């Protein structure tokens, strides 16, 4: 907390990263976006003993003890994004509300794959949700972001930040072209709690079904607002317990022994 050197380093990282600014890279099918937060992360890593050795052991430990708190300012902003849209959210149709449970699809597809790939407790962080800001905060608070669970959620968060937009844009195009789902259903599915991912997915659908433009945009935006509201509660009460349970099952199938408990520090010790 009172590690002045750490805060000075961080301030320098912020200023340098923000000065570089957003770098969009076009790659034919869409855009990859590099944000200042990504440079701050990478430069921060480069300062540690393995590389430049500016940030020493003490700075690394102090930084990791502070991350849980740093996320709270962002969560406050997040709540204030949801609040003004609440009346509209409450007026949403049953289809919109129920499709929110589809966000648990990450668990059903993610946990078996994660265990198959040989990931251990990273699974809990990576597969319990689509890993947007509130999920990062939740994992950070429960397990710390420097443990296995934290690596999982941060990994998926970064992937989402860098290529999530393009991924959702392409995925919506493919599903739209397959013709299995109605465009309305695909627009509702686009809202996963990230405005940029939703916009990309809806954008692809609008390009394919221009005469439904307004409905698609409205469904996408409403579903995204809903995910913003319920995403965190869904993770706390359903997603995370379900992931833990499924992880233990698949771990036992693969390794034949009970999954070891988390070695991460618990919140009350932090």
């Amino acid at each position: 907390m009172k590690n002045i050197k750490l805060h000075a380093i961080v301030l320098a990282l912020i200023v340098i990263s923000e000065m570089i600014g957003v770098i969009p890279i076009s790659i034919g099918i869409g855009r990859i976006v590099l944000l200042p937060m990504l440079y701050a992360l990478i430069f921060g890593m480069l300062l540690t003993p393995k590389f430049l050795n500016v940030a020493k052991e003490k700075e690394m430990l102090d930084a990791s003890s502070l991350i849980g708190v740093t996320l709270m300012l962002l969560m406050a902003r997040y709540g204030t994004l949801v609040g003004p849209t609440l009346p509209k959210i409450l007026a949403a149709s049953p289809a919109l509300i129920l499709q929110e449970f589809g966000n648990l699809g990450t668990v059903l597809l993610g946990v078996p794959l994660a265990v198959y790939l040989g990931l251990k407790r990273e699974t809990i962080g990576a597969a319990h949700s689509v890993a947007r800001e509130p999920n990062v905060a939740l994992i950070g608070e429960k397990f710390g972001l420097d443990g296995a669970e934290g690596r999982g959620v941060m990994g998926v968060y970064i992937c989402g930040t860098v290529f999530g937009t393009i991924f959702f844009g392409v995925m919506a195009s493919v599903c739209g072209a397959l013709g299995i789902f109605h465009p309305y259903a695909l627009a509702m599915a686009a809202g996963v709690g990230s405005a940029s991912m939703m916009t990309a997915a809806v954008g692809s659908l609008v390009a394919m079904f221009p005469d439904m433009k307004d409905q698609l945009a409205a469904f996408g935006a409403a579903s995204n607002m809903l995910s913003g509201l319920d995403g965190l509660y869904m993770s706390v009460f359903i997603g995370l317990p379900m992931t833990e349970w499924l992880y233990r099952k698949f771990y036992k199938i693969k390794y034949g022994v009970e999954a070891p408990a988390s070695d991460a520090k618990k919140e009350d010790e932090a």
Partner: protein
Amino acid sequence: MKTKDMVLAIAIFTVMSLFSNAITTKASSAAAIINSIPGLCILAIIALAGMIAAKFIPGGIPAAAWVVTIGCLVTVPGFPGAEFINAKVKLVNFVALCTPILAYAGISIGKDLDAFQKTGWRIVVLACAVFIGTYLASAVIAQFILKALGQI
């Protein structure tokens, strides 16, 4: 964490965010930077209120959930002062608040770099599965309900 430490930590991050927000929003004048201060202070108070609630109110609800809920509540149309709060926090860029977090995260990750290298490509594969999983499952449910309601 002691309440005193929470206040100090939030104060430090608020100052950090002032910098990242000023550069992100390309604040060209001192006035533009000063304008973002009330919003940041409101966010700091919401964050502190949520953390203190999580600490003293039993039930084990995470601070993140408290903070989001309080932030949501005070900006719901009709809540006393919601319009004022909303106008002020709007001047604080959401993405700018992420930069200080990831700067601290980068430094703290330094000690786990080996573990990161080991899991790196697997997490990328998994991230794709996570995106596909949420999208397809939501689409299946929406399709089913819309059909059942006769809306498509």
